[in-house]
């Protein structure tokens, strides 16, 4: 097996097991009030962090560029209760324009 296949298959297997692992926690643990509170916050913090990393980083460095303009425009659109597709379109157009300048 060459190295590319090894990387492909082994990472796929590990990532699949990680996904299954999330559903393997006993119900009584998940029903604990403290775990429930933490659990509700987890996707919020992970996705907030994801937004910031996707917007402001490149190759393990902080980079401020056209993406920030696009995401800021999206935040503004959300603030004014724009529909979801319109908000996304705003982000894409603003970011693409700033990129081309």
């Amino acid at each position: 097996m060459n190295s590319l296949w090894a990387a492909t298959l082994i990472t796929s297997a590990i990532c699949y097991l990680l996904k299954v692992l999330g559903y393997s926690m006993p119900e009584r643990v998940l029903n604990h009030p403290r775990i429930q509170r933490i659990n509700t916050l987890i996707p919020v913090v992970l996705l907030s962090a994801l937004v910031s990393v996707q917007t402001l980083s490149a190759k393990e460095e902080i980079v401020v560029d056209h993406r920030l303009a696009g995401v800021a425009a999206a935040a503004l659109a959300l603030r004014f209760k724009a529909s979801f597709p319109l908000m996304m379109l705003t982000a894409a157009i603003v970011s693409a324009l700033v990129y081309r300048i």
Partner: protein
Amino acid sequence: MLRYSLSVAIPVGGYGAVFGAAAVSSGFSVLQACVLSLFLFSGASQFAVVGVMGAGGSVISAIATGALLGVRNAFYGLRMAPILQISGVRKFLDSHITIDESTGVAISQENLGKDAMRFGFYATGIGVFVFWNFFTLLGALGANSIGNPATFGLDAAVPAAFLGLIWPRLNTRQARISAIFAVLLALLLVPILPPGFPIIATVLVAMIFGWNKK
């Protein structure tokens, strides 16, 4: 709600083409690119695997980085488990579509109840799976003709989609403060820790703010 699912699945699918092209230009075959999208099916991990291998990194570091970026899917599973209530074969099938997008749409529907969350999860997970795989194949086949995603604003549309999904969840003070701390912590860690760590480290923020009843 399908509007949410499709608004997420389409641009993310477009990124599938970027992934397919990146995989092939990193030396992966079209088949390997498709296997990654079908079986790894987690964008960040896939880009990490082809990125590390393409840059001449070792197999071990490609696997480690890909796996670290996949850890957050386990946390999403914890959140989705009580909502989906899956067991047996379904657990092994449905967990595969537990990713940023499906979880994001599910939590954006939280105020509509568990049925809406479940529908959002499946519509988005399946939608992204179909688009992502179809476009991976196209991107891998046409590797040389795929342009820079920045010219289409695709690199801002994807984080904007996630911002739109968490937006309705930022309706409490606790959620807003947690989100701000998560952003600060992740950005602080980006230059210090390897990819994967900065995002999953923010689980600590959820633990701190969720520890005591507010």
